[in-house]
């Protein structure tokens, strides 16, 4: 997956240029909020929350994963931001996250298991944003085709779609 790595590099560069390593809250989202992260350090983030719109997430990373899955047909290209990257930006590590979906599905996720390879919070499928009907706006996507470990029940259960909230647990 050379493309994948290249994209990652691009994302990384963009992150650097995006000035990701700040300890302060980002400017509030001016577009439609698609992700709310709560449970953050209240000193850095008012109310311990940070909201993101599509543009903000896009500026954090544009990692592409081309993979088939058990819910889709063919091999769509998912574009999104690495969860680990998001975590770094938000300066959270080692904690457990609780991810919530619009359909009231929720799953817990140990942050340690978010790697450079995945998962990503995918906001685009095949270059276009996903509607709720398409399981958007955010879908946690792993590179299922890449290895058998990405095809476990645990991984599937963490591939939460219609993601809208991440709660950082203490």
């Amino acid at each position, binding site marked *: 997956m050379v493309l994948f790595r290249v994209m990652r590099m691009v994302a990384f560069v963009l992150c650097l240029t995006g000035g990701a390593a700040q300890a302060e809250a980002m400017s509030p989202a001016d577009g439609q909020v698609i992700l709310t992260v709560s449970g953050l350090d209240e000193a850095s983030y008012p109310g311990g929350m940070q909201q993101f719109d599509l543009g903000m997430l896009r500026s954090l990373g544009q990692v592409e994963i081309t993979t088939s899955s*058990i819910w*889709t047909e063919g091999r769509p290209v998912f574009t999104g931001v690495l969860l680990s990257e998001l975590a770094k930006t938000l300066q959270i590590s080692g904690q457990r996250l609780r991810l919530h979906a619009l*359909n009231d599905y929720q799953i817990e996720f140990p942050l340690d298991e978010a790697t450079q390879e995945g998962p990503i919070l995918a906001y685009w499928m095949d270059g276009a944003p996903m509607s*709720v*009907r*398409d*399981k958007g706006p955010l879908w946690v996507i792993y590179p299922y085709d890449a290895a058998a470990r990405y095809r476990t029940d645990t991984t599937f*259960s963490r591939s939460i779609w*219609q993601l809208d909230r991440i709660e950082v647990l203490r």
Partner: protein
Amino acid sequence: MTQSALFRFLPLGRWRAAIIGVVMLAFAVIIIFLSADVLRQIANESESRSDNAQWALSQIEVELIQFLLAVDRAQDGDEDLARVRLRFDVLYSRLQTLQVGSVFAGLREQPAYIAGIDRLARFVAEALPLIDGPDAALRAGLPGVEAKAQQVVPDARVIALTAVEVIARQSDQKRRDVMRTLILTAVVTALMIAILIGLVVVLTQLFRESRRRSAENLATLSRLDAIVETAMEAIITVDSAGRIVDFNDAASDTLGYGHHEAIGADMALLRAVQAEGQMLFRVGSAPDFHGRDRVRVTARHKDGRNFPAEMSISRAGEGKDALYVAFLRDLSAQIAAEKALIIARDEALAGEKAKADLLVIMSHEIRTPLNGMIGTMQLLDSTELRPHQREYLRIMEMSGQLLMHHVNDVLDIARLDSGKAPFTLAPADLAALVGEVMENQRPASQANGNGMHYGGPADGRSLVLCDAAQLRQILLNLVGNAVKFTRNGHIRISVTHLSDTGPTEIQISDTGIGIPNADLSRIFDDFVTLDATYARRASGTGLGLGIVRRIVDQMGGQLRVESQEGKGSTFRISLPLVILGVPTPAVVPDAPDLAGMVGPLVVLVVEDNEFNRMIVRTMLVQDGHQVFEARDGEEGIALANTRQFDLILMDISMPRIDGLVAARKILLGYGASCRAPIVAMTAHALAEEGVRFRNGGMRDVLVKPITRSMLRAVVAGLPNVMPKPLRLVDKRVLLTLVQDLGQDRAGALVTRFLTEAASIVEKVAKGLVGAGPDHEVLRDLHRLEGSAAMFGAETLQTCLSEVETAWKQGMADDAAQRLTALRSVWHNTEVAFQEAGVFAQPSSLR
């Protein structure tokens, strides 16, 4: 040594090992495949395809109901339309997952599922425009949507329930598959383990077996070792390169090399050489001779001494691993013993021969003067004597006879012992034989007042095949003994056949003084005479029974004696004779009174011994014959050729020319007496000699001492008509010729004949040398023969004819002999023709 059944059954031959290997391999492959299958299935399980399908399927009902709730709340005003739309979207996306997701592929084949999904999909499709439309339309259509949604709620449930069953079945099947594979694997593994255990058991057995065998081998080896070490023969083991591997103590002793010296050395050490001088061993190679029988070789001791030895080599094993085992035995002692034995044997044989020769020569030497004495005494007997002189003469004659008897006995024994006493089997009438013996002994028997009787076989078959002379001797001895040792008693001789095919038993019993028991075994020994009352009158050398024993032994018979002292003795001989049957009654001519029967003869006596010659001459002269004497062969031949004799008595053993040669010369010499009967006189009585004499042309053989009756018998046996002697010239033929042709003509012819004949005879005589019959010579002879016949040259004609015949018959020797006489015959013929005076002209006589 019994092999275990297992060991025999599992010989681990190439085939068995291959089969086992293949089987094990197959098992391994099966297990690998099964394991791979299990792993695959496990891997399958490790990656999930289901994503908790149950959750997704039950969620659709939940999300439908959530939607219904939202719609309901919206109608009540507690909820805004955004919420409704959201719930609809969630439902929509869920439905899409059910329609598309690969995990639900199996379910999509279930009709109930398909039906449920279809109805849901229809509802969603119907509601879609409303949801996506403006708010107002939506709000207005909410009750309708709600109603429709309500309708499809059961479908959502059905979907989930269908899945429950199907999914349960699927996972059960999967579990079963895994189980099956695991069990299969376990079974195959168990089988493999069982086989392995089996192999282990077998191996253990084999190991034990091998250990046992090894122990046995060890025992055998040590046994062999002991044998080799204690063997008395040198045993040397050599490998295929010729190096000595083993060298026992006996080898050390024999060859002088120590054990340590020999081991590892090349076996050429032994320097064993075969009889023809071939070296058996060459350095660095195996012996090229083995497996054959013992061979005599020359071996060398360490100290350089060569000694004769016997060696045999055998091979064990093949090729490069072959071992050669050589047995070596020092033969020095044996050979020395052999040599000594050979020397001793030769000496003994020489001694025996010397003894035999001595006996023969001595007896001949003794007999000759004895003959002289006895003969002379006989002559004396026929002269005028006074009574007391006659008495002296009688005593002398008796002594002479006895002495001769003794000498004969000794000769007989020597002859029998030397083995030169062959049988001549001929049909003989036992009854006649016994009769002769009885007749011979009658005077003595009567003198002792004994009576003699003979009893023959019941069926009258007294004709048997035997050597009459030998049998006569046995009978004479035994009957003579019986007569000697019986006074006024009775002697019975009986012949019986013990069975139809013999053997024949001759029994001589007497009522004489008998033989003491203690002496019964001794009497057949040589020189044993028993001291008995009549010992002096019954004189003897003690050889008689010894001779009988020898002859019986030679004939293959048995000799037994029973005796009671004072009552008598019985001698039994059983002989394996071929019984021929009943003898045809022979016409026994009366022994003629020979004196004066035959007219006076002109006799030639050829004898070198003066006395013998004198005796024979006197006997003949007294019978009225005219006697000429020749002192040796040459004289005899000369006389025989010049004078015509009626009878020639030829002594055999004469110096220079012996009797046989002389006789032949006379017979083939065409002399005056070439047709005269020649009788041999000899001191040797051997049968084969007689045959030889007869083959040499002798008419008869007289064995010395020659008695008057023998001479008379010979004379009597001459044919009444003597063969016509040959004439040199048949005068009548010549006379007829003269009559027919006239004197002149006849004379001319005769002259020409004589001239021709002379040249032919010369030619033939020359052409004779060495060669056989030449055609030309034969032709000449034939022509000459014809001419001789025509002119009456009888002797010449006969000579030539007989030469031709002899040549034709292939008797080259005979022919040659006759031809040698041709010249003298011709000469005599010429002279005779001259004397005949047929022609007056001078002849070309040389």
